[in-house]
């Protein structure tokens, strides 16, 4: 069978899978759907009796009218899957709850994912997998999945319908499901292993969070490869011991603590509780995932294909924009997006892409993504893959120029100004570096860029005293008298008294002020309450429970994340961990300074700056993409941004 035929069958299967679950119903009963009006008694009486398709045929307007909202009822019976579990009205809005039993959803979502993977042509070179290690890794990752659920029982009690999580039998069922899913996904991936890294951009489209679970499909995959690597490859014992001791100490530190955290848009890559159990499990998970990613990158880096990844960036950009817009205007598509693509959070309901606030400032449109900021960063990287080759070969490629419009549109809609400024600066500096012009002219140009940056920030900001104090002021304004955090106490006792501390904190505050982070970072310091151990070594990775529940702060408009991966890392690994990370990165950069080409230096700078001002590291797709790009920069000897079609060919004599 040809590849085109196989793809066609795959796409048909995907469509069938998208439709089938919503047709489950007892068609022999006499219950027929009614039109949705303010009298909802019919739907209150007949819960779980009508399939979603029956409902939609009768109420077609619910598909596209924006005052209808489809919600997922994870805590519903298996027999209620795909049926109308309830209908309520709040004001002018209608909420149609669809039964989506978490166990059935897991299987359907995984099947969708497997079909998507099978659309990729298998690699010519087969990846050798040792069967014993493969089986051990499958068993370990499936067991670990059960442990993950066991550690967060309170979260899952509300999502698994009548599944007694205190009974051993329930874990046997969960183990069997997880094993089946893992086995099939890994089999499909192993056949395409060499090519995998080129498909990373699709992680932003197929987000992979299981409906109703605080788990992500990629987490299972990477953890499997982490286990495989641990069993099969030689790993420096120094790293193993360090990780084991850290996990042990983090867990001991968490004994006696029990803080809840609603994962919200971080669902699938953050713990929902801070307790010794979750700290241990999520720490192991973090190291396992990191090891798995390292293993994949190491084994497949030589198969990195700049053309293919560029194509995949373009496809995912177009699809995220299209699905984001369709979802914002059609409640049913928004529901389908959320369920099948495993979004952490439903897409936006804002259908006006070009909305401005009362100060005529463009409002960020997050569309398909959970966060507009992450969307901007993703589109920024897509732009780099398209523009750098054009600048490099000074050859205008009309197709690339047309295609770059999509990520540019995405970037504009996301209103991520840091990325926009960074890209412009990067491309200008690149041109200055490559175009043969007078050094004096270059110096003048650099000076002009610096002056325009200062003007953009505003000269007054440099002299405005609040710019250097904003975080200190915001932290104190969010703090409550009876419960102040240890870090705020430290700031209050040293700020303005100790010169070095004041200077460093003022520089940090100015950066926060320029990046519009004063309030968020101030709020972070009002909450950050480490003991000595946590201050130095952190509280354990992927756990915000303690930060958000230990200290009371004044009410905020919503759950506000720190909007800084650097601050997240401080919570997770403490000053020592972050110090080591900065040291490693800096020493790598210094060591490679002569070999690093401009584009690579730029991408490192791009990642660092974005990590300082956004939560990206807490999303598994961004974490993977950034880790992958840094891996390529430091371990891959060829340029990342290439255009093989337009690359001048060298003649061999």
């Amino acid at each position, binding site marked *: 069978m040809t590849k085109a035929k196989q793809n066609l069958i795959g796409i048909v299967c995907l469509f069938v899978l998208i439709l089938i679950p919503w047709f489950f119903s007892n068609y022999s009963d006499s219950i027929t759907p009614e039109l949705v009006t303010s009298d909802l008694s019919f739907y209150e009486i007949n819960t779980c009796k009508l399939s979603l398709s029956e409902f939609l045929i009768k109420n077609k307007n619910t598909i596209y009218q924006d005052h209808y909202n489809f919600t997922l009822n994870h805590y519903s*019976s*298996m*027999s209620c899957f795909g049926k109308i579990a309830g209908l309520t009205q709040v004001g002018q809005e209608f909420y149609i709850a669809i039964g989506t039993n978490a*166990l*059935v959803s897991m299987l359907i979502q995984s099947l969708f994912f497997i079909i998507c993977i099978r659309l990729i042509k298998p690699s010519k070179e087969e990846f050798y997998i040792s069967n014993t290690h493969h089986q051990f890794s499958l068993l370990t990752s499936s067991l670990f999945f059960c442990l993950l659920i066991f550690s967060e029982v309170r979260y899952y009690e509300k999502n698994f*319908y*009548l*599944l007694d999580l205190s009974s051993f039998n*329930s874990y*046997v*069922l969960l183990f*069997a*499901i997880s*094993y*089946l899913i893992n*086995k*099939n996904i890994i089999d499909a991936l192993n056949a395409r292993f060499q090519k995998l890294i080129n498909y990373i951009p699709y992680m932003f489209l197929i987000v992979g969070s299981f409906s109703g679970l605080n788990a992500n499909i990629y987490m299972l995959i990477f953890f499997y490869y982490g286990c495989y690597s641990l069993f099969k490859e030689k790993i420096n014992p120094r790293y193993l011991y360090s990780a084991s001791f850290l996990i042990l100490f983090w867990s001991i530190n968490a004994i006696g603590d029990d803080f809840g955290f609603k994962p919200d848009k971080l669902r699938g890559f953050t713990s929902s509780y801070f307790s010794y159990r979750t700290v241990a499990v999520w720490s192991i998970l973090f190291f396992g995932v990191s090891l798995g990613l390292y293993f994949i990158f190491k084994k497949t880096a030589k198969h990195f294909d700049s053309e293919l990844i560029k194509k995949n960036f373009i496809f995912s950009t177009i699809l995220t924009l299209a699905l984001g817009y369709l979802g914002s205007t059609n409640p049913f598509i928004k529901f389908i997006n959320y369920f099948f693509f495993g979004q952490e959070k439903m897409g936006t309901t804002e259908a006006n892409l070009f909305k401005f606030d009362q100060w005529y400032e463009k409002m960020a449109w997050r569309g398909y993504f959970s966060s507009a900021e992450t969307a901007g960063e993703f589109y920024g990287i897509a732009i780099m893959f398209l523009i750098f080759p054009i600048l490099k070969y000074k050859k205008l490629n009309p197709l690339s120029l047309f295609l770059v419009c999509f990520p540019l549109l995405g970037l504009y809609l996301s209103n991520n100004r840091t990325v926009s400024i960074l890209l412009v600066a990067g491309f200008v500096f690149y041109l200055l570096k490559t175009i043969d012009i007078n050094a004096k002219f270059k110096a003048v140009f650099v000076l002009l860029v610096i002056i325009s940056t200062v003007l953009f920030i505003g000269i007054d900001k440099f002299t405005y005293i609040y710019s250097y104090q904003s975080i200190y002021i915001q932290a104190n304004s969010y703090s409550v008298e009876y419960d102040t955090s240890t870090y705020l106490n430290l700031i209050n006792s040293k700020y303005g008294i100790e010169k070095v501390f004041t200077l460093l904190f003022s520089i940090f505050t100015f950066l926060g002020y320029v990046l519009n982070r004063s309030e968020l970072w101030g709020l972070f310091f009002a909450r950050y309450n480490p003991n000595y151990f946590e201050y130095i070594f952190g509280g354990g990775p992927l756990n915000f429970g303690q930060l958000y529940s230990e200290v009371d702060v004044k009410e905020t408009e919503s759950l506000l994340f720190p909007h800084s991966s650097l601050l997240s890392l401080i919570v997770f690994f403490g000053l020592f961990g972050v110090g080591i990370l900065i040291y490693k990165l800096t020493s790598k950069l210094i060591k490679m300074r002569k070999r690093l080409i401009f584009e690579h230096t730029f991408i490192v700078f791009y990642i660092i700056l974005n990590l300082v001002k956004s939560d990206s590291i807490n999303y598994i797709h961004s974490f993977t993409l950034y880790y992958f790009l840094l891996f390529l920069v430091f371990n891959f000897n060829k340029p990342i941004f290439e255009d093989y079609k337009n690359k001048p060919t060298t003649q061999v004599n």
Partner: protein
Amino acid sequence: MDTKIVEQLCGKYPSDFKKADVLSDPNYVFVNDPSYPATTLLDYDKNIVTVNSFLECEHYVSGGWNYLPTISLESEYHLILFGVVTSLIFAQSIYKIFRKSKLT
């Protein structure tokens, strides 16, 4: 008896609850509680009894009238799901072995 099941079927335990001492008194008569809504209980054979007080309900549930149709139905679904999943794992493994032997 698991108090969770009693609470699920009969409601919350009253603060002054004292278990009925039926065994020592064969002529024990349960007094109706007008504030307690009549509750229907089932045993495993789906026989029905209606109770009119928390005390009576607790007594019957402790004695085995604790069949919950929804829980049982869902447990059956879980069992079916487990059967399907394990059969799939088994079938796939057999198929893999068969294909491997055919190739060699």
